[in-house]
């Protein structure tokens, strides 16, 4: 759980030169898939973060400050409703079993889609595939889940 640093978890810093290498790698990947890294950059508690829109989905990308950099890609889907949580939690676990290379999780009262992998060996094509997959899942799930359980979709009134 400690590596979910983009949301404020405390992890130790790693040597700056290694992190800089990872940072440049992520920025070049983002540029290669049509995202302006400077415009997408956001402040995070530790490491680096970017957010941008893909279709109707909001995508967040984080780089963990560790010796072996990890790329985390998240897409917030919905706020939890105030009732019927047991059924919703069960549905999320059922969906978890059906997703490919993605998982559903919770942070505070928000349901996220989540993917993580080692930065080493990641190229732009694979990063693009990861982001596209998460965006597609998010597109399908936000309407379906908030329609069924009544939670507010993330980023909407």
């Amino acid at each position: 759980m400690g590596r979910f640093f983009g949301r404020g978890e405390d992890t130790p810093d790693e040597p700056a030169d290694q992190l800089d290498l990872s940072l440049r790698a992520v920025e070049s990947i983002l540029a290669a898939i049509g995202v302006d890294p400077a415009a997408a950059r956001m402040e995070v508690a530790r490491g680096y973060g970017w957010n941008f829109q893909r279709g109707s989905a909001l995508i967040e990308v984080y780089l963990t400050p560790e010796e072996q950099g990890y790329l985390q890609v998240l897409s917030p889907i919905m706020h939890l409703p105030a009732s019927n949580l047991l059924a919703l939690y069960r549905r999320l676990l059922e969906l978890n079993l059906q997703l490919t290379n993605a998982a559903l999780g919770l942070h505070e009262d928000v349901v996220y889609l989540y993917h993580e992998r080692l930065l080493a060996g990641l190229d732009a094509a694979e990063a693009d595939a990861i982001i596209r997959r998460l965006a597609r899942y998010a597109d399908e799930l936000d309407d379906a889940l908030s329609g069924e359980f009544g939670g507010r979709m993330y980023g909407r009134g």
Partner: protein
Amino acid sequence: MPGITMAQDELRRAIQLMQDGQVEAAAGLLRRLAEAPTLDAKGRAAAYVWLAEAQEDRDYKRRCLERALACEPDNAQIRQGLNQLLASPAQPEHLPLMRRPAGSPLSLEQAPAVVGVEGGRNGLASGAFVGRGGLLATTSYAVGSAEEVTVRLGGEREFGARILRRYPLFDLAFIATGVELARKPAAAPSAMLAENAAFVALAYGGARLPGRLITGGRGADGHWLATNIAPVQLPDAGGNPLVDENGHLLGILTRNIGAGGKACALKITHVLALAEQLRRERQLMPKAGYCPACGGLARALLFGGGTCESCGARLAASDGRAAQSEALMRLYGENAGPPCRGCGARVGGYAGRCLRCGYALAQKGAG
């Protein structure tokens, strides 16, 4: 002692009558035999044990088993049977009569000892009739969350049947077949089961697995029979009836494993007790249903709820949406406590944190 021999013959006849479903005739004979001075203590104990089986009344059963134990104080099976009875919750004395289904599709003079159950989540399984109304027992493992299966009686005879309820804890499932049986299936009372008793596990298709009851493992908790059968020997997804040398049902072989990695069977007496509990629940709450995922009684259906109050699974014939009545909210454990200081939801907590937003809930006694 010709008197003793004659009494023992009568006892055997009474037991046969019970197993043939002629309960009233058997009970009259057993009552007389239980008082007969010509029957030895062991025989009187057996008469009281069978007499307990002949009556629905819980107090009557208790008195019978107490008398049986007085005749044979060292009989561990009788003591266990009495303890189980005392531990089980008392049932209401009077219930409305259950209406019998009209136009039963099939009536069987001679029920097959084992049937096939097909169409479940784990392939072909065996099963056994456990009631005259055609209630069929097989394993929960075999049927999974299926709602209907095909029951094969042998030959070309087969029909569709509905899963009534699953008991994942006991690896048991009841199937409503609507078949009318001429006789109640012959079942041995648990107080008569002896360790090391030989049995044969029957499988649909003709396989017969000989085995013995052993001690230890799940056998110790009262509902289970530990066997010496390795699960790899099972020819199907379980549900095999265990029968003794007289063809009497001892239990239903499950996919649960006991000490030493051997398959466990559920005692037929417990299967019958669960069947009786199911019948009463269906009488008392005909609009309630059973969750296809966890098998629990889904009272949410009584209040218009669409998901199981125990596991959250969507219930059959619902759109999964939760109605918002107060009764339903209480059933789901919502609106029951104070609102969370973080998000205001009243959905309860886990490990001191709000189930919805994770905010730390106030400690009891904190200012």
